[in-house]
């Protein structure tokens, strides 16, 4: 049994145990005793979810210890430093099924808990030569160290868990491609105008029977276009990795059980790629030289350069003019600022108009033609989901969104080929037909929507004018003056003797004389 440390207790029997500023029994080290490796992994996973392991990593030591009865357990030893840190570790250890002890060299006593807020002290030290003696309220045990476990090695051995959500996480990616797939992938990225860096990494042969080292292409991409995600993730021989910590990346679709960002055990100059599906970890002590993939673009050299010559009289080349066509395009939609609502879709437009916001109604302009309604919105027409969307490739020239004009002439050339009609807005339909809508035919949608509304006049009441005109005439009503009506009015004789003092300044002389 352990003794609870009392308030203001000054002496402790456990060697190396002292009291910190708060009176808590604390040694120089802390030990977490875990029953197995998987509990250790659970402890690390839990701890790294809450905070970084960096502060304890320098003093951290993971060992497998063996009791006298042969039971093997795992201990984490670290510098205690303060009761705050040890409190946090003790909570996580309790969750992971471990016990927390504190001490300095060999004898470690149970760290404080709710029953003993100031910790515990040993009643009697167990005489033993064992490397570790742990004293708990429920047991006292001695252990010998069997072997050490490196945290880095432990993390490398842990198998990532499947986690499909990592597919959606944005950010840079590493791609490891087998040697045969590298060039094809380079050209695929070059063709698709994807920014990427590529390098060639080598690993030792997988077995003694292989003579050459294993070569893989390593790509670093700031962002993978979304459309390429499924292809790259599902192609055998290509692995896409999500950087989770400096010098470490986990394959897309998987997540390492420990938060690697909280475990700074990997060298930033190297790279560790954690692969899923039971594949080995790919570890690179140093990153290979990486170069921009544009350097690998396919080049073709001409055999000779034709020099310009003076025109000679010869057979004339026939005209090469071809009809304009529109072809589906894989380019992302940009500048989709117009739509063409066919006549049969007009009822739907009327329905949708009720749900449109005031800003959309104000900024959208509409032209009504026998072919239907043409809508234009300077910042995007997607807010009115009706009709066929058009994108503006040049001022006054629209082609259907998701389609490109072939031959791929410049928009200005195309506009000139259409005759550069002034004041007309040209819409190219999918069959190559061009429709011109007069520019001044576009009116604000809010003006075109409402039908003429019947209104009933109501008489407004102008308060000021009405009240001025309604001022009643003053009319005198005479009535009885009561008993002794003249009790305040002095008689004429008394009036003659009344003396009043007139003092205020006045415009005219006092007294109302009928004539001056």
């Amino acid at each position, binding site marked *: 049994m352990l003794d609870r440390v009392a308030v203001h207790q000054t002496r402790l029997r456990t060697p190396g145990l002292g009291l910190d500023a708060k009176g808590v029994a604390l040694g120089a080290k802390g030990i977490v005793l875990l029953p197995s490796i998987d509990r250790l992994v659970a402890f690390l996973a839990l701890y790294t979810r809450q905070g970084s392991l960096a502060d304890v990593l320098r003093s951290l030591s993971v060992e497998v210890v063996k009791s006298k009865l042969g039971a093997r357990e795992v201990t984490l030893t670290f510098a205690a430093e303060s009761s705050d840190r040890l409190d946090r570790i003790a909570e996580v250890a309790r969750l992971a099924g471990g016990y927390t002890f504190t001490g300095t060299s060999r004898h470690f006593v149970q760290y404080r808990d709710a029953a003993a807020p100031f910790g515990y002290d040993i009643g009697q030290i167990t005489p033993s030569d064992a490397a570790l003696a742990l004293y708990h309220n429920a047991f006292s045990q001695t252990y010998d160290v069997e072997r050490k476990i490196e945290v880095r090695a432990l993390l490398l051995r842990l198998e990532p868990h499947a986690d499909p959500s990592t597919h959606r996480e944005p950010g840079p990616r590493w791609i490891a491609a087998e040697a045969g797939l590298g060039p094809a992938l380079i050209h695929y990225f070059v063709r698709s105008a994807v920014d990427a860096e590529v390098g060639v990494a080598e690993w030792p042969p997988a077995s003694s029977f292989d003579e050459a080292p294993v070569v893989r292409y390593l790509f670093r991409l700031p962002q993978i276009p979304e459309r390429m995600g499924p292809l790259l993730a599902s192609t055998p021989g290509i692995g896409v990795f999500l950087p989770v910590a400096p010098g470490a990346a986990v394959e897309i679709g998987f997540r390492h059980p420990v938060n690697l960002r909280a475990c700074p055990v990997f060298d930033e100059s190297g790279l560790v790629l954690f692969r899923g599906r039971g594949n080995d970890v790919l570890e690179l002590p140093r990153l290979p030289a990486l170069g921009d993939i544009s350097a690998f673009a396919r080049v073709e050299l001409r055999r000779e350069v034709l020099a310009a010559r003076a025109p000679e009289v010869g057979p004339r080349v026939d005209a090469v003019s071809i009809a304009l066509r529109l072809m589906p395009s894989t380019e992302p939609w940009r500048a989709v600022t117009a739509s063409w609502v066919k006549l049969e879709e007009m009822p739907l437009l009327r329905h949708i108009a009720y749900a449109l916001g005031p800003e959309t109604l104000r900024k959208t302009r509409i032209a009504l033609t026998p072919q239907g309604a043409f809508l234009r919105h300077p910042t995007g027409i997607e807010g009115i989901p009706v009709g066929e969307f058009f994108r503006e490739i040049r001022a006054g020239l629209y082609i259907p969104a998701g389609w490109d004009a072939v031959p791929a002439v410049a928009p200005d050339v195309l506009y000139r080929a259409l005759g550069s009609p002034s004041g007309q807005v040209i819409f190219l339909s999918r069959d190559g037909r061009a429709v011109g809508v007069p520019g001044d035919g576009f009116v604000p949608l809010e003006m075109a929507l409402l039908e003429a509304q019947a209104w009933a006049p109501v008489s407004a009441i102008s308060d000021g004018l009405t009240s001025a005109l309604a001022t009643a005439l003053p*009319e005198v*009503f*005479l*009535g009885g*003056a009561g008993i002794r009506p003249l009790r305040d009015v002095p008689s004429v004789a008394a009036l003659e003797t009344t003396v009043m003092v007139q003092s205020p300044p*006045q415009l*005219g002389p006092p007294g109302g004389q009928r004539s*001056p």
Partner: protein
Amino acid sequence: MSTDDAALGERCEELARGVLGPLVLGGPVHPVRPFGGPLGLRVGVVASERRGVTDGDLASRLDVARVRRARLLAAVDTLPDLDAGDWSVLAALNDLLQLTNHHLAGPLTRGRYARVLANLEWMCERIPAPADVLSALSRHATFARALELARTDSTVSWWTGSARFRGEAPPARLLAWREIRRVQVDARRVPLAEMPAGVTGISLADYADVLALWLTRTPLTDLATATRQSPMFAWSASTLALVATGPGRMLAFRALAAEPPDAVNAVLSRAALQVPEPYEEARRLAVGFAERAARAFQELKSESPRPQPR
């Protein structure tokens, strides 16, 4: 505050509700018990010390109506509260109306009218004229409708007799069964100048004199109503003092511009001639104002007429 002042304060409230409010805002005017000369002068002092009308709603409506009236002559947004002189003028108007009240005296107390008349003259002679042009405008804004005061006299006749009512509504019993009793009501509006008709204790001439005297206490109103039939306009010290200043003269011109030019010219010319010759300065002022007014009306007439709206 003494008991007398408190009682006088209540009478001020009574005066404001019964006379001042209806005079400015329109409606039935119910004159209160006569004040008499000394009390009429003192009521102004007490009322101005009590900061005017205590009924906030009435005070607000009075302010709006007075400013509206004043803005017909000058672009003012506010007017000063009624001063002691204004309250005394109001008390005098109340006594003037009571002078026409046939209920004031009976057959044996006819002398009351002379007593009230003497007090009224005494009071009007002692009410101070406006101290400046703004005071004149403010007083005019309050009393501009004084000559609009009217009384309705009714004669009710039925098949067996008739009855006359001065400033009173005929009782309902006399108006009942109109068809059967062949009731006829002859109502006639009596303006302020003719109100003493029918009162045996006061003559029309005396009443006209005291009304003219009362008008001189609000000179701008006196000038603005110069074309009235009775009492006829005559220059007084206060009206001459008003037109002797430039702004006052301008206000007077504006007030007279609403009247018929010929009538104004005739009244001003006659009034100027009535100024006694010994008062040379006053006569020169009156003649000069009449000439300027005539010239101004001539200029107004010679201006190109406004285009008629189609």
